[in-house]
């Protein structure tokens, strides 16, 4: 872990060398390690301005200082915190709203860095906004670094000796990005700048392969979506290849660099990719945002007199203040003039409740396979649903029809009881199950609840909608039902409980535009974790 720390410091040095690198995302809990890192950052970058995601435009961009203006009777302007040369530290970056993020991206596009995002997200689902982290070159994860690591010397770097000159660093850097499946073009751009900064740190004005290795390791590790295949061992090269080897000597050590980056890949890379993919779709977590004037997170106040709305006193006064001089003159009275048009109402954005509809396949084929496991997973999800105050509904389909075992409820105990008594056996009327889930979802939506359908099946549909045992018709019916669910814009999630992933079910998930989780041989806990990731905020 000492390596992580020292790589972090290296990132800071590179950043101090060239602000065009944007900055770094610092993932760490509050604590002495983070303090030490931030102190190191301040030493290298200069005084840092701290921001937090709840700051208003006036604080960020400047504006009229109302208090001072009123006191002095003259307009006093206040400077914003986002200045051309400011070094920005954003605390709790994982909480930044899109609007706040937009301010900072604009600042980065206009003035460049350096900017440090403190990401205190506890899980993979909480993370700094992508729009910002994509514009910053580095990512430092100090979560597992302990204080004792800081003083420890780093393990020696293998690429210290790589001083071969690189004629065409751009090409190499782009090719390496390709190997790691990095799509954004900002990444290779940053890597090139970082390599040059790294060379400059060592007092060189040409880039050597060690520079590229260090730069790519820092810039690519957290962006990787692929682990490149291991290069063939050099011994396999025959003597006749010597000419070729020599030719590639001037832009040689792709492999070395690949290894350097690979050494820094996070262990949970695949989980991360899965999480990123899952949130890429619409499969977002708790209910949709709903605007209201009663409860929830406060939004900027709006003009207008809506009945029953709560008046935002500060905003109202702020609107009224500029008019005071004019109104006093007009009316000739010296008091506070507030007109109806000044009134600002409070607004809130509240997350609507979420309803998880479990459509569980209890047919013979599934029952044999893993009905018990599916039940276990649902139980674990129920526990999480309870802690999030989600509603839960349970539908099972077997034989020739679907049955609503439990209408939407928050009673977890009841759900558990019904689930335990869920009998198995019979055919798989997949279409009927989907239809029942859709009906339930639409009803919930009319009540202002955001539904998510969680389908657990092995995908071997064999009972058509009309109850006949016809495999082909059954599959066609299921596809049609899935298309209806998607057209209704209802989020869904497909969990394949079969022994082997079923291709037909994957296609069905695509039709639903839902994440597809094949979990052959998964235990209940893994299943539940996968679902949780896919449903995350």
């Amino acid at each position: 872990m000492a390596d992580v720390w020292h790589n972090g410091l290296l990132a800071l040095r590179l950043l101090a060398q060239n602000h065009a690198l944007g900055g770094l995302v610092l993932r760490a809990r509050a604590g002495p390690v983070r303090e030490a890192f931030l102190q190191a950052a301040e030493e290298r970058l200069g005084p840092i301005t701290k921001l937090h995601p709840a700051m208003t435009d006036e604080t960020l961009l400047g504006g009229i200082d109302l208090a001072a203006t009123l006191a002095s009777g003259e307009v006093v302007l206040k400077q914003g915190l986002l200045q051309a040369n400011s070094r920005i530290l954003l605390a709790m970056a994982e909480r930044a709203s899109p609007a706040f993020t937009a301010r900072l991206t604009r600042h980065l596009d206009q003035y460049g860095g350096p900017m440090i995002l403190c990401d205190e997200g506890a899980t993979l689902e909480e993370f700094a906004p992508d729009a910002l982290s994509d514009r910053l070159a580095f990512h430092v994860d100090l979560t597992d670094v302990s204080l004792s690591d800081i003083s420890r010397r780093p393990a020696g770097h293998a690429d210290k000796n790589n001083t071969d000159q690189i004629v065409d660093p751009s090409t190499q850097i782009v090719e390496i990005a390709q190997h790691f499946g990095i799509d954004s073009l900002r990444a290779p751009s940053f890597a090139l700048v970082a390599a040059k900064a790294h060379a400059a740190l060592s007092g060189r004005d040409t880039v050597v392969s060690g520079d590229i290795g260090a730069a790519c390791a820092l810039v690519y590790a957290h962006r990787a979506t692929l682990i490149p295949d291991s290069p063939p061992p050099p011994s396999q090269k025959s003597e006749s290849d010597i000419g070729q080897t020599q030719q590639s000597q001037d832009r040689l050590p792709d492999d070395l660099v690949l290894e350097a980056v690979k050494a820094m890949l996070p262990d949970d890379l695949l989980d991360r990719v899965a999480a990123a993919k899952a949130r890429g779709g619409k499969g977002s977590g708790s209910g949709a945002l709903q605007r209201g004037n009663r409860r929830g997170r406060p939004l900027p106040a709006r003009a207008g007199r809506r009945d029953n709305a709560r008046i935002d006193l500060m905003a109202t006064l702020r609107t009224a203040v500029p008019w005071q001089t004019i109104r006093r003159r007009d009316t000739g009275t010296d008091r506070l003039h507030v007109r109806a048009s000044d009134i600002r109402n409070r607004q809130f954005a509240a997350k609507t409740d979420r309803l998880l509809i479990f459509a569980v396949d209890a047919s013979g084929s599934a029952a044999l396979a893993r009905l018990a496991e599916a039940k276990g997973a649902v139980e674990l999800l129920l526990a999480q649903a309870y802690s999030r105050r989600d509603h839960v509904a349970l539908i099972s389909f077997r034989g020739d029809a679907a049955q609503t075992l439990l209408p939407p409820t928050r009673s977890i105990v009841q759900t558990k009881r019904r689930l335990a008594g869920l009998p198995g056996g019979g055919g798989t009327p997949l279409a009927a199950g989907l239809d029942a889930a859709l009906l339930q979802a639409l009803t919930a939506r009319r009540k202002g609840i955001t539904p998510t359908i969680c389908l657990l099946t092995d995908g071997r549909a064999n009972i058509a909608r009309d109850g006949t045992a016809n495999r082909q018709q059954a599959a066609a019916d299921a596809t049609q039902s899935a298309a209806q669910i998607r057209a209704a814009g209802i989020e869904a999630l497909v969990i394949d409980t079969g022994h082997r992933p079923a291709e037909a079910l994957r296609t069905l998930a695509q039709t639903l535009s839902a994440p597809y989780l094949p979990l052959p041989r998964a235990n209940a806990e893994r299943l539940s974790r996968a679902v949780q990731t896919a449903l995350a905020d």
Partner: protein
Amino acid sequence: MTHPFPFSAIVGQEEMKQAMILTAIDASIGGVLVFGDRGTGKSTAVRALAALLPPIRAVKGCPVNSAKAGEVPEWANLESKRTHERPTPVVDLPLGATEDRVTGALDIEKALARGEKAFEPGLLARANRGYLYIDEVNLLEDHIVDLLLDVAQSGENLVEREGLSIRHPARFVLIGSGNPEEGELRPQLLDRFGLSVEVSSPQDIETRIAVIKRRDAYENDNTAFMLRWQAEDAAIRDRILTARKALRKLKTPDQTLRDVAEVCLALGSDGLRGELTLLKAARAHAAWRNDTAITRSHVRTVAPLALRHRLRRDPLDEAGTGARVGRILEDVLG
């Protein structure tokens, strides 16, 4: 940064560049919507566009960039009404901007200090006769979207408050960019954009290397780089100006009108805005190519730009709407 990255130096992304040039030739086409992943050069292109556009003549100091002295609004209180050349305005509308900042409001400074009722123009005024750019347009607050729709339709911004009644022209080309993964755009706003482009990172390695090299040259050898590419930009600018003139003389054969109508009918696009935009875009494209009359090839080139975002969503179609437009074009135009 002194100069933005030059427009002509952007590698690839031909469709996006084409769409922006078409709106520069004929502003009445409407806006451009650019949807795509991060790091594909969306913002770069818009900021480059500002430097590329031909300058306009406007009254000096006029808050709405009026072309003639007679058009300057009264509330501007300008003393001299001499015109000068100024760059085409490209105004950024940030997410979370307040209504006051967008439409304009009471000038707080004058009101407090002197008790005067004066109007302080907002972003809409500044964008008049130019471009209004909204990054992450799909995340824009609903009430700002409504307001923009209203103004875009009427071409006029109306501010009414207690003895302050201001009306000023607000005609602008809307450019929106966003990442579709982060949220969908409301259909009403979608329809307001004349053209739409989907961008993605180039997939072949040569192009990607070229992008990185140019970026590197821009950052490290700025003077030489700008010298080389600003000349290219100037060539595009001249071509835009020529095309604007050519646009007036361009003939539209009846056959083209029929083609356009047939394509839109076959696609089942909502309303007539699709036809109008397709026709205008085809005209602008013909003018850009310096052709004397519109042909089917012009229509074919710009149809995906003009129609892609006007189709009803088909949940069963995985290929995306662009491919559907292509198929229909093949059927109708042969």
